[in-house]
């Protein structure tokens, strides 16, 4: 099996190994690190994580599929995750989602044809005091409005 994960991946894991009494405990950190390299978790990467940890590929998938942050399919360059939980809805999150769907021409869960944008609904992000909130890749954007969102998106195009 040709290796797909980088030297950096193995270096990061080496650093973490002494921090845990079992190797399986490295599974979530390893999947995060692998996703950082590809933007999602390609099957070959998950298989290699399994080999590194010493578990069956099915066990890797069983865990990866439990958590929403692991992308089991490729996502766009910009992954928009708009919170639509209670506090954000009370502050207009639904309208924001609608606005984004129109602007990008896709529905939630979809990616634009040019692979630039993926739009998703997210559960509470822990930013309810500055609602509505969303994540753009790893970063939070809070106190959003349609105008602010437009400025943000237009800057990315």
């Amino acid at each position, binding site marked *: 099996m040709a290796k797909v994960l980088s030297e950096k991946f193995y270096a990061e894991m080496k650093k*973490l190994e002494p*921090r*845990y*009494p*079992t190797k*399986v*405990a*490295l*599974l*979530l*950190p390893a*999947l*995060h690190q692998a996703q950082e390299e590809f933007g999602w978790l390609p099957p070959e990467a998950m298989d290699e994580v399994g080999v590194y*940890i010493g578990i069956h590929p099915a066990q890797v998938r*069983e*865990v990866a599929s*439990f*958590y*929403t*942050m*692991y992308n089991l399919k490729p996502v766009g360059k910009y992954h928009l995750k708009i919170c*639509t*939980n*209670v*506090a954000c*809805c*009370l*502050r207009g999150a639904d309208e924001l989602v609608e606005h984004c769907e129109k602007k990008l021409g896709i529905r939630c869960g979809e990616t634009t044809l040019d692979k630039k944008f993926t739009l998703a609904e997210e*559960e*509470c*992000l*822990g*930013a*309810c*005091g*500055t*609602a509505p909130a969303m*994540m753009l890749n*790893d*970063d*939070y954007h809070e106190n959003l409005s349609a105008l602010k969102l437009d400025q943000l998106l237009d800057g990315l195009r």
Partner: protein
Amino acid sequence: MSETTLYIQHFNEESRPLDYYLSKMNGYVAAKKALSMQQDDIINEVKKSNLRGRGGAGFPTGMKWGFIPKQSTKPKYLVCNADESEPGTFKDRDIMRYTPHLLIEGMVIGGYAIGSSIGYIYIRGEYTREAKLLQAAIDEAYAKGYLGKNILGSGFNFDLTVHRGAGAYICGEETALLNSLEGKRGEPRVKPPFPAQSGAFAGPTIVNNVETLADVPFIINQGGEWFAKLGKLEKSGGTRLISISGHVKKPGVYELPAGGATIRQLIYDYCGGILNDRKLKAVIPGGSSAPVLTADEIDVIYDIEPLMKIGTMMGSAAIMVVSEDYCVVKLIKRITKFYAHESCGQCTPCREGCKWMEDILHRIEDGHGRDQDLTMLLDIADNINGKTLCALGDAAAGPVTSFVKKFRADFEAHIRGGKCPSA
């Protein structure tokens, strides 16, 4: 409002560095003191403080620490629950990004008190920035000898690792969290055994919320009795960080003495009242898992027992305020969709029941509700409540029951009118 506050005055970007913590917040003075105390004396001090867990259940922290079996030769673990996933809650984020050393110092003291040399901070995956800030603070602490080997010359070792979750509400439940930490699916465990007997990696383990652990240095510095007296009610010590969101003029994190105000005061005096001066419709008082309150029920003192007495809960101290122009049917549908999505699927009543409740609420909101739907909702909720491994089931059932009972007219109007009356 000249009450003592411990945190809020430090909640800004300038407070983060170790220098600030050392010079302005008595940084690591409590750790030094604690490391020269007997372990039991620390636990007793925490017992005296009336500190109750800030994660949701309000369990007395000193008592919990006392459950760790001393004679056990297995490695013991101290795990900080920084999952902060209860909708409406955003206070732990401020502790981690503004005063991370408070949490680190609290964990050093907690670790020493329970005889653990290994700590983890399980932080929700979305908090990438906070995880980086925490890691930077941990690196500072290691460099200065507040973490690692022979801390402050005491002979006590403590290693602390930030462990990121990956998006799953259920991982806030402590045994699901431990499974997740071990590299498994975040499914809650059968209890007993409780974590204090067999927790992380089968070792005796204490799981505490971020705020709970961050309170500890204050208790050691000023004494348990002092901390207990900060609280206005008999059984609750210290201050509470309250997350307030929704239709208020000034949402945000507020800090008050435990039991220091009623919900009405919090909304109207602290948060400046309802957005656009509309009328109040509903208050969700303890994160989305808490049964709802009507506008007539808000003269209750905001603390654990008073809220329990009126059939709801303080949970993670997150208040969501809803004004009269928002449809409560839509609201409870959204809440229920969340629980249906987040149910880990182990227990049939929760896995199936949450989905059914979501479907029924969906059709009521859409105007296709049937006469028997409300009875059916209450019935399903009743069949979930108390019949699951963890409290997620109760968290889904309680809100549905309370919304249907307290806002029945709104549901009936949807069913009879065939649409949302305000649409």
